């Protein structure tokens, strides 16, 4: 399954990634599973995605929670709580 990932704000700076394409095994995937998968990349990934910081996620431009299912072709984004306005 292929997905496109985006990172914003503090996450983008810390991870030094803005966007990436991922190819994952064709198994049921949720936001939480994807975070756990990415956290294995190393300290900063673990801190940013599975640590104390609040992380919000969007799938195809819709805010979702940790249990949301991710499907082939989805655009998934991770970012801190929003602070616009």
């Amino acid at each position, binding site marked *: 399954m292929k997905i496109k990932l985006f990172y914003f704000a503090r996450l983008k700076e810390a991870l030094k990634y803005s966007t990436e394409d991922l190819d994952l095994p064709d198994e049921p995937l949720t936001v939480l599973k994807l975070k756990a998968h990415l956290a294995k990349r190393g300290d900063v990934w673990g801190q940013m995605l599975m640590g104390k910081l609040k992380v919000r996620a*969007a799938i195809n431009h819709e805010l979702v929670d940790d249990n949301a299912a991710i499907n082939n072709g989805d655009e998934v*984004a991770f*970012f801190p709580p*929003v*602070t616009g306005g």
Partner: protein
Amino acid sequence: MTVRVQTEDFDVGFEINQLRKARKDIGAVVSFMGLVRDLNDGDAVSQLTLEHYPGMTEKSLASIINQAKARWSITDALIVHRVGTLQPSDQIVLVLVSGAHRGEAFAACEFMMDYLKTEAPFWKKEVTQLGERWVEAKLTDDDARGRWVK
């Protein structure tokens, strides 16, 4: 309904006139404008940079207007939000609502701001004497949004 994300400044008087056009059935226009303050969390702010999630931002703002339209009887609404680098006293965001009656226009405008503050993908980074820092989300904004949950 109008939604714009832009680096350029906006003119609130012009936007209100555009929203009203020549309509004669509008009795109330409520506007909210958010500005860069030179103080945040006790520190002097000299500059603010706004990042956003292109594509999701516009959808999120349109969805906020549609939720307001579903909930209150309003005639039209507009959201303009700036991105990029801003200085203290610069205009950040404009939310306009027109309608027949003031109560619904006030509620819809405040609802839209409370949702924008907690759901629209914008992030602020500010420059203070201590250096650059990401602005922290406020619990009071979550509380403000919570008021609207039925």
